[in-house]
């Protein structure tokens, strides 16, 4: 199950064209869902507006469970975009994968550690940015020496560990799911008997992957808010 990827160097940067394609597709799908759902806004919501308002309330609940709303309200747009983007990205690789000349084109963008780590680094960087901006550099810096001064090295390690676990957790879950799907698909296409045999586990695993994709989107957003709260809250 080894697939290659088409890469292209441009302006001294290396682009994996499959990632570029899937990032674009995910972004466009999320944008279309959100914008189409909010085209005909009404005081009495129905259909898609209802769904999106449910998502908004869900993310509000996530933020509300980690920090008070006065502080956390500004992160609502970030949380909403994150949870929808990651969920859609996780779902993209489930129904099928497209392989052209042994190069994998259609997959979940979140099945690539580069992408998930980029998101994780972005979140952690944002948490530091808001920490400095909302508490001032002095108080922000002082957080690294609490509750004991000698814990400073651990605090530094914690930041990197947070980033790595945040990104790799998402990558690992989605990549593993796609890997097993690809194996099952390979098994299923190798013969009639294998095809019948692979059908049931294939369906089970796809259903489980939908569950995992949703859970991972939730966990990523939840941890984002936890890290942000950790940096911007005064009460610990």
């Amino acid at each position, binding site marked *: 199950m*080894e*697939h290659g990827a088409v*890469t292209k160097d441009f302006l001294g940067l290396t682009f994996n064209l499959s990632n570029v394609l899937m990032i674009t597709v995910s972004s466009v799908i999320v944008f279309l869902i959100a914008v189409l759902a*909010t085209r005909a806004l009404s005081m009495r919501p129905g259909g898609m507006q209802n769904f999106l308002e449910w998502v908004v309330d869900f993310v509000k609940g996530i933020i509300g469970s980690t920090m008070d709303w006065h502080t956390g309200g500004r992160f609502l747009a970030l949380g909403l*975009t994150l949870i929808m983007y990651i969920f859609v990205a996780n779902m993209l690789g489930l129904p099928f994968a497209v392989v052209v000349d042994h190069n994998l084109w259609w997959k979940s963008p979140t099945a690539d550690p580069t992408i998930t780590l980029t998101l994780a680094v972005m979140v952690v960087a944002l948490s530091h940015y808001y920490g400095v901006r909302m508490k001032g550099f002095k108080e922000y810096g002082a957080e690294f020496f609490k509750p004991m001064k000698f814990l400073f090295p651990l605090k530094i390690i914690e930041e990197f560990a947070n980033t790595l676990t945040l990104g790799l957790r998402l990558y690992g879950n989605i*990549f593993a799911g796609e890997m097993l799907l690809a194996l099952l698909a390979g098994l299923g296409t190798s013969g009639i008997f294998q095809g019948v045999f692979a059908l049931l586990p294939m369906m089970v695993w796809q259903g489980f992957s939908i569950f995992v994709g949703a859970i991972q989107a939730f966990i990523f957003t939840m941890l984002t808010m936890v890290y942000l709260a950790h940096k911007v809250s005064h009460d610990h």
Partner: protein
Amino acid sequence: MQSLILGAATGGINTGDILFQLVSFIILLVLLRKYAWGPLMGIMKERQSHINSEIDAAEQSRQEAKTYLETQVEELKKAREEAKAIIDNAKKQGEAQGEAIIKASRDEAERVKEAALAEIASEKEKAVATLRQEVAALSVKIASKVIAKELDESSQEKLINEYLQEVGESR
């Protein structure tokens, strides 16, 4: 240009992917904030304030209705009391008027009776006075007649009878 890799893990760092992911996510964030989350939050906030104001209005109208009801009950009670007072008054007045009328008619009857009695008495007195005058005049006449002529007993008797008869006729 191509690298054989496991899954999507790439050899080397795909710096372009990092940049592209970052830029596309930020663009998505900005676009959604402007075209989706903003209006959605707006309508949710609007609905919230609408519900709030509706609840307030309902509360207010309930309060108003309560006040109205209270005043209405008060008014009704007052009207009832007033009506009762008017009826009582009228009854009392009627009774008083009746009594006054009866008293007035009694007085009137008394007065009429007294007047009648007084008239009767004065008439009687007048009659007595007239009789007296006439008796006196008669006596004088008889006396003058007796004195004017000397009469025998029989003729005197005859004379007296004549006069008496005269008196009787004149009565």
